[in-house]
């Protein structure tokens, strides 16, 4: 693999985005109380440049970087690619890098760790010293973690997990967060810490390098520090925490250390989420007690403002869920031609292209998809044939509306795993992460006669001889039509 020149930290990423016109510097003072959130939200809805807010009311020296990865252009920049790269090109690069050899992180001395430039311990610890924004009016609180990594470690297996679990500031020393029971951290808590009544050490890293954030967001089986190394082509620099044995990205802007309490919970939520709704009820949730805060000089807090499309939660999660499912299906020998999740589905619909070479292939795909670790994050799988462009919604929608038999093509899976965030789920199902899922089989049945039973697609590309197509295309302007030939 050739040398990768991806931004190594959030500051290099901001600079690269400003240089390419994919971020704007906002010099005027911005209020952390709703105004910053409103700016980021509008940028997401307009597909605008990312706002780098250099002056925050009440918090001199701090800055915000909003909507860091809510466009494919910024995703390409994060990977060190041309911002104009297409989605299939970005996806191919992701697959190439994540199929390479894992790159182990390196531990650096704390003197070489910018995240240690300021250290708050003991009575100095107060989350209110950080510019924690009120992201949406009406949220249950100011959210510390919206684009970050919560770092934990399984005490027996040693698995390190960087996960993006939203975290709300409850008071100056306490955060609460949504940790689903099927998530890596949720399993670690229920498997080990909660039965023993032991606190679970954690560290929240904010202002990560964009590829570290991408790793934290990706549902990959590869441990996130190694995955980040594979994505960036070099070892991630880690440094030991001040108050526990966890290791955190040395170049992160802000680190919050502490303990997840096994027997004490405070309220969390509601919060505007990636589904485009405030769905999950306010409830007593996993509670994080803070023991230390460390941060860089002039630290930048990253903000994701989730809501209606499109934000980085939708974009990046769709991207990585699709590609991880593609890897899974190919590992099982299924002749998939591609997997794509449109971000505007708020990562709820998986579109799978496949060569329909045997009966039941769509069902096999759905069973693998829903039965995998990825499954709780989406509830619709649509399987189309290899002649349908999965990236072209017009083609996919046409296939769905015409080939999916209402009686034989729609298969509902009941009593599966869901999330508390599904807007369509009942309050009871949300509370207990009970899901239901559906397969839309848009393949022609393999036992239909291909000559006499399978309908012929009537399109310019499919029904006219090549020579006629070429003649019409070459004469298009001469006929008097405007527009380039296609």
């Amino acid at each position, binding site marked *: 693999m050739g040398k990768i020149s991806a931004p190594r930290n959030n500051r290099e990423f901001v600079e690269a985005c400003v240089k390419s016109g994919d971020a704007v510097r906002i010099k005027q003072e911005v209020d952390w*109380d709703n105004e910053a959130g409103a700016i980021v939200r509008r940028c997401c809805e307009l597909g605008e440049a990312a706002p780098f807010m250099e002056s925050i009311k*009440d918090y001199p020296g701090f800055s915000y970087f909003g909507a860091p990865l809510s466009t494919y252009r910024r995703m390409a920049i994060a990977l060190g690619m041309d911002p104009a790269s297409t989605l299939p090109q970005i996806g191919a690069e992701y697959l190439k890098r994540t199929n390479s050899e894992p790159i182990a992180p390196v531990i650096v001395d704390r003197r070489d760790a910018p995240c240690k430039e300021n250290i708050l311990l003991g009575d100095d610890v107060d989350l*209110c*010293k950080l510019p924690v924004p*009120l992201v*949406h*009016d*009406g*949220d*249950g*609180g*100011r959210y510390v973690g919206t684009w970050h990594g919560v770092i934990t470690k399984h005490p027996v297996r040693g698995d390190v997990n960087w996960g993006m679990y939203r975290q709300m*500031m*409850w*008071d*100056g020393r*306490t955060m609460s967060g949504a940790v689903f029971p099927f998530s890596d951290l949720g399993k670690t808590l229920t498997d080990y810490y909660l039965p023993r009544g032991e606190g679970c050490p954690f560290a929240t890293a904010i202002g990560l390098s964009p590829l570290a954030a991408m790793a934290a967001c990706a549902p990959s089986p590869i441990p996130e520090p190694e995955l980040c190394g594979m994505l960036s082509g070099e070892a991630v620099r880690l440094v030991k925490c001040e108050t526990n044995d966890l290791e955190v990205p040395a170049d992160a802007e802000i680190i919050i250390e502490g*303990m997840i*309490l096994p*027997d*004490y919970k*405070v*309220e969390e939520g*509601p919060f505007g989420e990636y589904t485009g709704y*405030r*769905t999950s*009820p*306010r409830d007593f949730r996993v509670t994080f*007690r803070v023991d230390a805060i460390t941060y860089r000089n002039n630290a930048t807090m990253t903000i994701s403002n989730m809501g209606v499309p499109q934000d980085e939660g939708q974009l990046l999660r769709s991207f990585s869920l699709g590609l991880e499912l593609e890897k899974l299906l190919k590992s099982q020998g299924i002749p998939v031609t591609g997997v794509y999740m449109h971000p505007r589905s708020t990562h709820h619909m998986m579109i799978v292209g496949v060569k329909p070479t045997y009966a039941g292939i769509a069902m096999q795909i759905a069973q693998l998809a829903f039965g995998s670790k990825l499954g709780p994050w989406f509830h619709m799988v649509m399987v189309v044939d290899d002649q349908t462009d999965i990236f072209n919604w017009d083609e996919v929608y046409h296939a769905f509306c015409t080939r999916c038999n209402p009686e034989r093509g729609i298969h509902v899976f009941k009593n599966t795993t869901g999330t508390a965030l599904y807007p369509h789920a009942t309050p009871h199902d949300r509370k207990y992460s009970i899901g239901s899922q559906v397969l839309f089989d848009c393949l022609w049945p393999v036992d239909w006669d291909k000559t006499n039973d399978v309908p012929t697609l009537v399109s310019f590309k499919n029904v006219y001889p090549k020579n006629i197509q070429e003649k019409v295309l070459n004469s298009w302007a001469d006929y008097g039509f405007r527009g380039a030939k296609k």
Partner: protein
Amino acid sequence: MANKWEVFVMDLAELAEGKELELTIRTLNDGLHKYTYQRAKVEVSSKLDQFADSLQVRLGRGQLSDRKFSIRVIERVERLPERYR
């Protein structure tokens, strides 16, 4: 100076008047600690001049209620076990 508070409830009936309640309330006073929570024993009244402090109410999904209250914070309740303080 009067304080401004906010509470989240699923149902306005949770804010019974004429009795002591234990609620999780957050401060709306301007400053660095705005929106931080505390647990407290309180008394609320729909008569806005009954108590010095004001209470704003939000419902389950963050909707702002048009019902306003005055509130008296009787005492703070510390639920956090001693071993974690």
